[in-house]
């Protein structure tokens, strides 16, 4: 259930340009992080396996394999700390949540590329 008042409040926190990407895309997520008083950008690359929530609270999950170990990071879509989301590759997927990738190892993790 959404409430009008809450929707209006959240409007101020939405990004003016919402990054466009889809489930199954391989993306580079640029995160601004503060180290002491220096700011630098960290990039997390992986496959988008889920989007959840709505409005200013929308989150997306990115999964990648690091040193043979599956790593998932969940980002708030509208966070000002997410400076950029670059789509590297799109895939053919038929569902909204790709949780089945968690049970797959090696070659089976690959998704067919979508060509337009």
């Amino acid at each position, binding site marked *: 259930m959404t*409430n009008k*008042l*809450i929707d*209006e*409040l*959240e409007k101020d*926190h939405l990004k003016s340009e919402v990054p466009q990407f889809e489930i199954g895309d391989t993306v580079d997520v640029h995160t*601004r992080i*503060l180290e002491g008083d220096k700011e630098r950008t960290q990039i997390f690359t992986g496959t988008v396996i889920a989007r959840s929530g709505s*409005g*200013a*609270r929308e989150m997306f999950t990115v999964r990648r394999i690091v040193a043979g170990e599956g790593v998932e990071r969940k980002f*708030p879509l*509208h*966070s*000002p*700390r997410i400076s950029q989301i670059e789509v590297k590759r799109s895939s053919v997927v038929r569902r909204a949540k790709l949780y089945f990738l968690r049970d797959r190892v090696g070659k089976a993790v690959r998704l067919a590329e979508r060509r337009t």
Partner: protein
Amino acid sequence: MVKGLLGRKVGMTQVYDDSGRAIPVTVIEAGPCHVLQVRTPERDGYEAVQLGFLDKKRPAADRPRSRSSQSRRSERGHVTSRLNSKRAKRRQSAGVQVVPKAECEPQRFVRELRGAAAGVEVGQVVTVGQLADVKAVDVVGVSKGRGYTGVMKRHNFRGQRASHGVKKAHRQPGSMGMSASPSRSFKGERRAGQYGNARVTSRNLAVVRVDEQRNLLLVRGAVPGPNGGFVIVKETNKVG
């Protein structure tokens, strides 16, 4: 007057602060509130300000026909002096001084805020703007009612084992106390019973934002009660 007012819980969301951190907030529709009455030590024996929040529908008919419409009239009589009743006319012709009234619609949610009431007048309107320079608030609400619940839900008891001979006692509290001595159970033992639907105060919630245009107040963290529940917001009495 104590900095505080009445409101309604709208719901929760999150906002980002300057450094980009997400803060969980509860949105409260706070005020505007009419001052319905000012309690003074001379007349009432204590000091307080009585506030009302949200207009209530007037009864369709203005003339009393039944007992219930009579009571609604008395609610109107509490907020307005322009009651077109026989009694009001009689009193007027007799020259009885009418105490000042707020001259507003009957209010849905009426509560008193205790504390010094100097400088507050009946009929004054209190808005959320008065909380603009307040750091933290206490929020009073009525918690969600859960009905008659067992000890596991109500007091976080652990219950008993699923197997190893436990028979039909998996969610029961277990022992209530000792045996022949003291031959009774102590008072205050935590047991099953009504859980929720009680007045709860959440103290020292940080004020994140005050939106005077939309009469909204954003406080950090959760507030007792369901969305749409009435709450009392006061400047916190927590020291330090």
